[in-house]
């Protein structure tokens, strides 16, 4: 039983690791009061996933130079609207960015 955790920088590691985990796992309570919020969180998480994927894809296309100026303008306008809409919805449901993620256990985090 010779478990060691050794480092010269305990405090720094403690801080960073806490950022990752928050140290306290969360659980959605499916009772009437917060079922709605749990639901909103789930739905918004999935929308965020799609939005981020689209943004990333757009960036790759810009990088590859495969979009015309007009296309860049149109995509930019749409992505901006989407981003603003999501900000609104997050505010309405009182959800923070960090909360819109799903931990899929052995598969890691969704985003």
């Amino acid at each position, binding site marked *: 039983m010779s*478990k060691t*955790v050794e*480092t010269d920088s*305990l*405090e720094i*590691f*403690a801080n960073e*690791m*806490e950022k990752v*985990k928050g*140290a*306290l*796992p*969360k*659980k*959605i*309570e*499916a009772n009437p009061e*917060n*079922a709605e*919020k*749990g*639901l909103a*969180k*789930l*739905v918004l998480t999935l929308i965020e996933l799609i939005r981020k994927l689209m943004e990333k894809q757009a960036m790759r296309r810009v990088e590859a130079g495969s979009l015309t100026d007009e296309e860049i303008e149109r995509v930019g306008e749409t992505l901006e609207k989407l981003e603003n809409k999501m900000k609104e919805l997050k505010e309405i449901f009182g959800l923070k960015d960090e909360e819109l993620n*799903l*931990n*899929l*256990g*052995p*598969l890691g985090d969704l985003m």
Partner: protein
Amino acid sequence: MDRQIKILQDKNSYLDLRRQERVTLLEILDRALEKGVVISGDIVISVADVDLVYLGLKVLLSSVETMERLRGAPLSGAAEEPT
């Protein structure tokens, strides 16, 4: 508000832990909460959020069913006025 599983009695006692203990606890959590042999017991204490996805979807489906029941008709194509 999501119910946080109170791993420690209260936040202060956690901060009171010596750094070594904090880091050790974090290291254990880093492993034992999601890794190892991952099979669900038949009691879902529900730490892995895969269960939560299922639970969330169950809630979603229940909500849809409840709404349909309240309206007295399926949601799609309903021409009723909201109650």
